[in-house]
């Protein structure tokens, strides 16, 4: 671009518009983070569905895969931060939202692991117990442990939140639509048994993160090729 070229007023306005579009249209997200989380959460959810439905165990807790994905995510974040040539105003706010999302998921997991045991202890201290009673009396009553019914529905609800905010702020339709569909999946999961909640959760991870991740990755690679 030459500097001293005389511009008409219209050319100046066109240049401003063009440059603002170029800044807006620059994708510095590589899409790898979305692909990573979309993949691990989908796999963990679907495996859990099959384990519960067909009553088998793969030998380890599949959700450890999700926990393990934090390490590559940290590496990806550091590398993306290093390679980012531009920082947008919304970046800090979106990073904060995804961090809060991570903490919320961690907190909900802790709730799921701690609260039933603690409730059992309180119930024992009060001198009573939860019992499964068959209305038709075909089987004898049996004591049961406290559990959080259909808690995976809450996970699905939370999956949609940062995805919707990102989709709205970035005007990235795949995430926007993905989040809206996920709200639908959340409502659906309120009416299904826990096994199906996991299947719906897998679908939510697929449409919230995996598919947008594929689209982001393609856009990023296309931009990288254009810059060569």
């Amino acid at each position: 671009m030459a500097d001293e070229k005389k511009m008409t007023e219209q050319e100046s306005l066109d240049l401003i518009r063009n440059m603002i579009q170029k800044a807006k249209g620059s994708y510095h997200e590589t899409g790898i983070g979305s692909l990573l989380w979309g993949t691990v959460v989908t796999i963990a959810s679907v495996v859990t569905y099959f384990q519960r439905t067909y009553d088998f165990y793969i030998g380890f807790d599949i959700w450890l895969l999700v926990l393990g994905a934090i390490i590559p995510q940290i590496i990806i974040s550091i590398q993306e931060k290093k390679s980012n040539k531009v920082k947008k105003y919304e970046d800090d706010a979106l990073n904060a939202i995804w961090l809060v999302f991570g903490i919320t998921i961690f907190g909900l997991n802790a709730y799921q692991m701690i609260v039933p045991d603690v409730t059992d202890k309180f119930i024992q201290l009060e001198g009573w117990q939860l019992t499964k009673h068959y209305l038709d009396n075909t089987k004898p009553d049996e004591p049961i442990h406290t559990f959080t019914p259909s808690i995976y529905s809450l996970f699905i609800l939370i999956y949609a939140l940062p995805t919707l905010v990102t989709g709205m702020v970035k005007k990235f339709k795949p995430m926007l639509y993905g989040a809206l569909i996920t709200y639908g999946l959340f409502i659906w999961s309120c009416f299904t048994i826990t096994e199906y909640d996991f299947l719906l959760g897998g679908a939510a991870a697929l449409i919230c993160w995996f598919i947008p991740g594929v689209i982001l990755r393609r856009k990023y690679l296309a931009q990288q090729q254009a810059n060569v």
Partner: protein
Amino acid sequence: MFKELDPILHSQLRLAVVSLLIGVKEAEFTFIREKTNATAGNLSVQVQKLKEAGYIEVTKQFKDNYPQTTCKITPKGIEAFEAYVQALQQYLQVGKE
């Protein structure tokens, strides 16, 4: 009475740089060069002029042993850009009448 177009901004490359920076928090020199298709030498001179006018802030640092130059628009730069766009619109409006 027409506002005079700011001579600092009424230059193709400088206007391109400020228009890029107006929409982002900060950008590296290499990003600006990529988007404006300018040569490093020419861009360097124009960035310096914008810096001297107080329209942008330029930070030089080392990142992984490589020099890195980051540019950021200042409040004065935002004000000047807004005034420039208003003046342009005024000119174009009169042209239409």
